[in-house]
């Protein structure tokens, strides 16, 4: 009894401490090596704001797309008895483990100018998706939406279904129940999923550079800017990385404190 209260076993403490170092040390390195003296000038450079703005906008749009499509998908997975549900769940979570570059190639094969759907779009309407901001949003949503689906489905399964049953007995149809009972019930889970999804979209690199290419102002997001800056101007890359780090931390703090509250932390 006393041991449970007091000391943590060394066999757990040591790996835990190493794990912490492993995760935190690289971030410390970023701070130590940052070009602090001319940081202001570097961040005021023309391309930086452009890339940051594009990153924020495209990650937010990708999250909206993921919410509109992902929440209903999670509901279908959690609340219906659709045959082949587990197969469906496996399929829609593939992008979670798929190397993003492969995702980018796959998007080309479907939505590219020569792709299965893209070819028709191009020849019929003259619409070409690759190398546009739309392509950035699509690539990010493709990679990030599974995070939201998994998280919302988990929240739905954990939520007490008796409230929904009660709503149904009181005469509410399924859509009203979903809107008035289910959604408010799992709102913290949806919020947490949206934050995860947004953060993943913000950091997306592989699928974006493959499917959307790299052009300042239209498709060059922060991670792409960091990668290219690293090629010939490492201090600039560090400066850009700091901005991304700051945005990520700020988002986590802000959303956890203000919006998600404690229930999401528990979930």
């Amino acid at each position, binding site marked *: 009894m006393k041991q449970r209260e007091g000391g943590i076993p060394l066999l757990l403490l040591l790996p835990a401490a190493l794990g912490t170092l492993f995760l935190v040390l690289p971030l410390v390195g970023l701070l130590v090596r940052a070009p602090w003296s001319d940081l202001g000038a570097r961040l005021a450079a023309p391309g930086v704001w452009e890339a940051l703005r594009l990153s924020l906008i495209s990650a937010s749009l990708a999250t909206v797309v993921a919410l509109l499509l992902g929440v209903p998908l999670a509901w279908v997975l959690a609340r219906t008895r659709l045959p082949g549900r587990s197969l469906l769940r496996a399929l829609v979570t593939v992008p979670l483990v798929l190397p993003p570059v492969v995702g980018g190639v796959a998007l080309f094969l479907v939505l590219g100018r020569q792709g299965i759907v893209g070819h028709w779009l191009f020849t019929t309407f003259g619409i070409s998706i690759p*190398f546009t901001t739309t392509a950035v949003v699509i690539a990010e949503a493709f990679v990030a939406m599974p995070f939201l689906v998994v998280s919302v489905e988990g929240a739905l399964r954990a939520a007490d279904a008796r409230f929904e049953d009660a709503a149904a007995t009181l005469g509410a149809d399924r859509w009203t129940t979903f809107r008035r009972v289910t959604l408010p019930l799992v709102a913290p889970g949806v919020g947490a999923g949206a934050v995860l999804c947004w953060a993943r979209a913000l950091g997306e690199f592989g699928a974006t*550079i493959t499917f959307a290419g*790299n052009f300042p102002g239209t498709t060059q997001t922060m991670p792409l800017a960091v990668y290219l800056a690293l*090629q*010939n*101007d490492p201090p600039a890359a560090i400066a850009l990385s700091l901005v991304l780090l700051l945005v990520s931390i700020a988002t986590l703090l802000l959303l956890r404190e203000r919006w998600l509250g404690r229930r999401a932390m528990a979930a």
Partner: protein
Amino acid sequence: MRTTTRAALALVAVLALAGCGSPSAVSPSAASGKVGGTVTVFAAASLTGVFTDLGHRLEHEHPGLSVRFDFAGSSALATQLTQGAPADVFASADQQQMDIVTRAGLQKSAPVVFASNVLEIAVPPSNPGHVTGLADFAKPDLTLAVCARQVPCGAAAQKVFAAAHVTAEPDTEEQDVKAALTKVQLGEVDAALVYATDVQAAGDRVQGIEFPEAQDAVNSYPICVLKAAPNAEAAQAFVDLVRSPAGRRALTAAGFRTP
């Protein structure tokens, strides 16, 4: 009696072993020193084909040697080297990236130029954008790829655009030349500015269009053994092979010019 026989047998065995050993000591492979183990070559993406072949050739000449390659944009490789990546040889697609490595004092001996390359326009075989020359890169309605200006093929592209007074309107700045070429092979862009060697390597999957302004941006390829090379002998053997008549033949066949 028994002991004597055994000693005699041992003596014969020793002699036989020595006899076996001595001819190999003067075999041709000894002329280039004892080369074995693993040698790591960091090379520009545009060298992928020809260096892979030369690597196999060197492995064939020196059984027990394994040649490992990291092909990427020269600038990415230069950054990795200055960050302490362990490699034996660095071959860059331009002088600028080699300078980054030599300024950091990482070279064992002075780099030597072993090849040069010029830009060429690559279009899909059917040439859907009806591209005929460099001036077409100013057309906003075409989908066009160039290399990012941070990598050598991008720097060369900026040079030829300036020389030709063309205001380029590319849709994407790719992270290396192979990525730009891939977009042509997929048919996703109407044209890309790549190296002549890439067009040659792609065979009939792309069509190449030469243009006179390419002469204003000839890329020189320097190579050097690195100071921290874990396998300096094998590294030198690789550099020697690249600069040998056989190496030059392979480079020329791949579309490079050799000094």
